[in-house]
């Protein structure tokens, strides 16, 4: 039982981790919590639904197109809203992102309706290992592999490319980045693009594991923030680690508390972290 829950937790955790990487970088660089991140995740999943189910494209192509389209939406949000509001109070930008979240979610409701949707209606038989000791669906194996590939790609991007290093530098110290000659506006656009891609991927994988609903991303917003705070704001590696911890804790918690309270687990971990070490495990000091 515990091993099964652990596995489920790793699957959920990888999905949270993918979403949290972008959220953390944006948070670190632009200094505001992006409350539309969960709904951006939902949007990515529905874009993939559009391409895969409604337009009957192959899954891999739908995945790529949806990721690119979500990145585009993230960039547009930056251009239309956040770029103008950033210079003011951070609360104003955050409220604007709450507004963006509601707008996105209701656009999804408008076009796709409130009913659950599936990428594939066929019911998958889980692979049973060790006499029913462990069950895993084929989809879940795909999710784990895709998440791993994406995380490795992010790692290579952040450590081997100039742009990736500039992103990390900006999350560290944006004033110094400017003095160093980094074209901060351009890097910000790329950061939104990368967040969009990863967030869409998280949404698609989540829907691939279960199904699509208009609130799927919103329901993950708290775990996403908990992962970011646990790992330290601005630290992409912290976000990956935080995502796994939150995912595993949420699933394992059902051993002791009712499954209805899973979201409370993320919240509790986050509050504990804020009490013990507000800067997170891998973050810099918070003023």
């Amino acid at each position: 039982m515990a091993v099964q829950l652990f596995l489920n937790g790793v699957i959920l955790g990888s999905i949270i981790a993918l979403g949290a990487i972008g959220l953390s970088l944006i948070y670190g660089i632009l200094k505001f919590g992006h409350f539309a991140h969960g709904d951006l995740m939902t949007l990515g999943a529905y874009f993939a639904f559009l391409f895969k189910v409604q337009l009957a494209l192959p899954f891999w192509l739908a995945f790529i197109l949806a990721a690119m389209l979500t990145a585009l939406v993230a960039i547009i949000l930056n251009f239309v809203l956040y770029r103008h509001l950033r210079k003011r109070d951070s609360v104003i930008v955050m409220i604007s992102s709450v507004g963006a979240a509601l707008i996105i979610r209701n656009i999804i409701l408008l076009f796709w309706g409130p009913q659950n949707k599936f990428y594939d209606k066929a019911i998958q038989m889980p692979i049973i290992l060790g006499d029913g000791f462990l069950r895993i669906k084929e989809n879940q194996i795909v999710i784990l592999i895709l998440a791993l590939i994406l995380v490795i790609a992010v790692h290579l991007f952040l450590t081997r490319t100039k742009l990736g290093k500039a992103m990390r530098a900006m999350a560290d110290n944006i004033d110094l980045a400017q003095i160093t000659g980094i074209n901060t506006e351009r890097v910000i656009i790329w950061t939104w693009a990368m967040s969009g891609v990863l967030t869409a991927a998280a949404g698609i994988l989540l829907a691939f594991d279960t199904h699509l609903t208009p609130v799927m991303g919103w329901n993950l917003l708290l775990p996403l923030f908990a992962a970011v705070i646990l790992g330290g704001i601005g630290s992409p590696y912290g976000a990956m680690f935080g995502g796994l911890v939150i995912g595993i804790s949420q699933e394992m918690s059902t051993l002791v508390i009712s499954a209805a309270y899973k979201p409370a687990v993320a919240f509790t971990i986050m509050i504990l972290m804020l009490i013990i070490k507000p800067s997170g495990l891998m973050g810099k000091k918070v003023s």
Partner: protein
Amino acid sequence: MLKINDIYAGYGEIEIIHGISLEVKEGEIVSIVGPNGSGKSTLLKSIFSLVDIMKGNIDYLGTDLTKLGTDKMIEQGLSFVPQTDNVFPTLTVAENLELGAYVSNKNLKDRFDLIYSLFPPLVEKRKKKAGTLSGGQRQMVAFGRALVMEPKLLLLDEPTAGLAPMFIDLILDKVVEINKTGVSILMVEQNAKKALAMSDRGYVLAAGEKKYEDSGKGLLENEEVAQLFLGG
């Protein structure tokens, strides 16, 4: 090479620098000294457009810096080392240096070698995160980052602030050493006596205005300056 002409600068509506002119000639070390709050750092930052400039212009090798973007300034051989928070703490030493060359695409291997030879302690720390280094070593990384692009003029904002006494002389010696490789230096410094002793020329600021300017030696020997600003 650098000529500040009657500049007024500050933050938003608050004017801190009230009309200062200053010059740095090729190959010089020039120091700006003065009491706390005299506007030394603000003046230095105005060169790099890090504060708001209300009036005046800054000529650098024939171009007006007040109209230039940061990346262009760096391409033209200008570099700035801030006083605090001057390294990227979660990036490695090597990555910090690489980012110093962000605006360029040329092969920088030789430059890195030069920087490591200037600051030997950094060699074995190249894979370490800059945030884990001591204050003195961090200052070396900050200098290194600023030197990667082969600057002609290096702007230093209180390079010894917050350093342990043993590092102060070391860092100031490095400044002289860097100058000998052909880099002109303009620095703001708290340790006024030490700074003036190593400078070709110096400026004394008070309350946002220029009070004295002379050779470094001249200022050190000026009794008025000594009494008012150098603590007797």
